[in-house]
């Protein structure tokens, strides 16, 4: 956390790697109560980078597959102000292209009252960064305050959701503008995410 409130870097264009917006087609949702917070490790000297993201015994992450040209469209970060200082609102939006008793019971109903952490993969990954290649690829949302339901709907005639569920989760008052997952390299972090999905075995 930057407690001195001093900017420490020039605001400039990244000439080493062209900046591209957007998100990859797959994200990962985790029940926040399954995060083993006591053993989460941050990269040394990098308060916005998580290097180890252990889950409690038996828990695992669930992939969220999206389709189309704009996966997770509506996922945003908003900077806000208050009398006590600024804060960040993270929003994660996704489509569930299905509707069934299992979808209701196993996904939508838990979302009604649950608290979640979400990992999204940016298209801009900083793969050419010399010291931390791939450090920008994976972002964690909901770590500090938890993501909870902000909006959700199912419109059988909706073109945006193709008749499926449209869900928006929000984390309010996050103290940081970005929290990244970086196990040392892009491939190491991708492997880490695979272990999140597969659980400890």
């Amino acid at each position, binding site marked *: 956390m930057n407690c001195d409130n001093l900017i420490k870097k020039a605001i400039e264009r990244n000439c080493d790697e062209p900046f591209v917006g957007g998100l990859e087609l797959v994200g990962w949702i985790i029940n926040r109560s399954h995060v*083993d917070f*006591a*053993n989460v*490790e941050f990269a040394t000297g990098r308060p916005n980078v998580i290097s*180890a*993201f*252990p*889950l409690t*015994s038996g*828990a*695992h*992450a669930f992939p969220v597959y999206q389709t189309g040209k704009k996966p997770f469209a509506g996922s945003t970060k908003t900077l806000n102000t208050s009398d006590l200082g600024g804060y960040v609102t993270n929003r994660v939006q996704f489509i569930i292209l299905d509707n069934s008793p299992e979808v209701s019971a196993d996904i939508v109903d838990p979302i009604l009252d649950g608290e979640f952490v979400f990992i999204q993969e940016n298209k801009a990954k900083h793969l050419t960064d010399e010291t931390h290649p791939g450090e920008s690829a994976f972002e964690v949302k909901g770590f500090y305050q938890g993501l909870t339901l902000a909006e959700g709907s199912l419109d059988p005639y909706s073109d945006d959701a193709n008749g499926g569920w449209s869900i928006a989760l929000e984390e309010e008052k996050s103290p940081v503008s970005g929290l990244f997952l970086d*196990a*040392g*390299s892009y*491939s*190491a972090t991708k*492997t*880490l995410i*695979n*272990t*999140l*999905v*597969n*659980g*400890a*075995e």
Partner: protein
Amino acid sequence: MNYEEIKRRVSAWGTQFEFSTADRAAIEQMYFDVLGKHIRNCNCPDRYRDAVIELRIFTKNHLTMEKAKYVLKAGVVIQPSGTSEVYTNDNLTDAVAEQFLKERPGARGLFEVIPNTAAEEKGPENEKEAANSADIDALRAENESLKAELAKMTEYRNRAVADLDALVKKIEESNIVLEPREPEKTAEEESDDANKGEQEPAGDKKTAANGLNPEIYAAIKARLEAGDTKSAIVADYVGMEVDGKALTKYGVEKYFTAIKAENPAE
């Protein structure tokens, strides 16, 4: 299913062009058992073939290797210093895990399972705990034994109280009047009484029975035996307070009479 069986079946599937329903079910099951995840649920035509390829690669790379006793938590990969190798539970070895923990002892929380090393390091502490545990067990056993003893004694007491109540009731019903008895003398008291009897001279007893003072009796007798005259003795004893009364001449003469009656020869 052992490694050899897995390898054999995966190898056989690798030569097939199509999979039967039974094969598909078996592939799904093995994919989950070996890789710990489900085959992707999509309409991809080659999903089973892809799964078999993935299984073949995995078995070739990993199944010959003995599985590590250490298990990392989900969401953790380790990269020992000085190497570019990243370890997960799929390729972790005990040696790598031990080396990693030696470098970073504070990172134990990243492991789901750490085989008995913790217990070994805490050897003496464990022994102490074991000893304490044995003591606690012994005390518990003793406590149980005492409880049983207490229950037994309580039962005896209740039975005795019940018997006593029944007896009292019986006595009340039969109208028997119980007179209080003199307390029985102890052996010591009886012995004291016997000694007293031996110490008291027979004459004194007689004298006491005549209403004479035994000390005065003895003293007058001694003076008579010593040859003192009766008049001198009378002179000395008249007026002397004996048993709360002043001794008269007649009273002294009663002593003379009693002494003479006891010793007629004199």
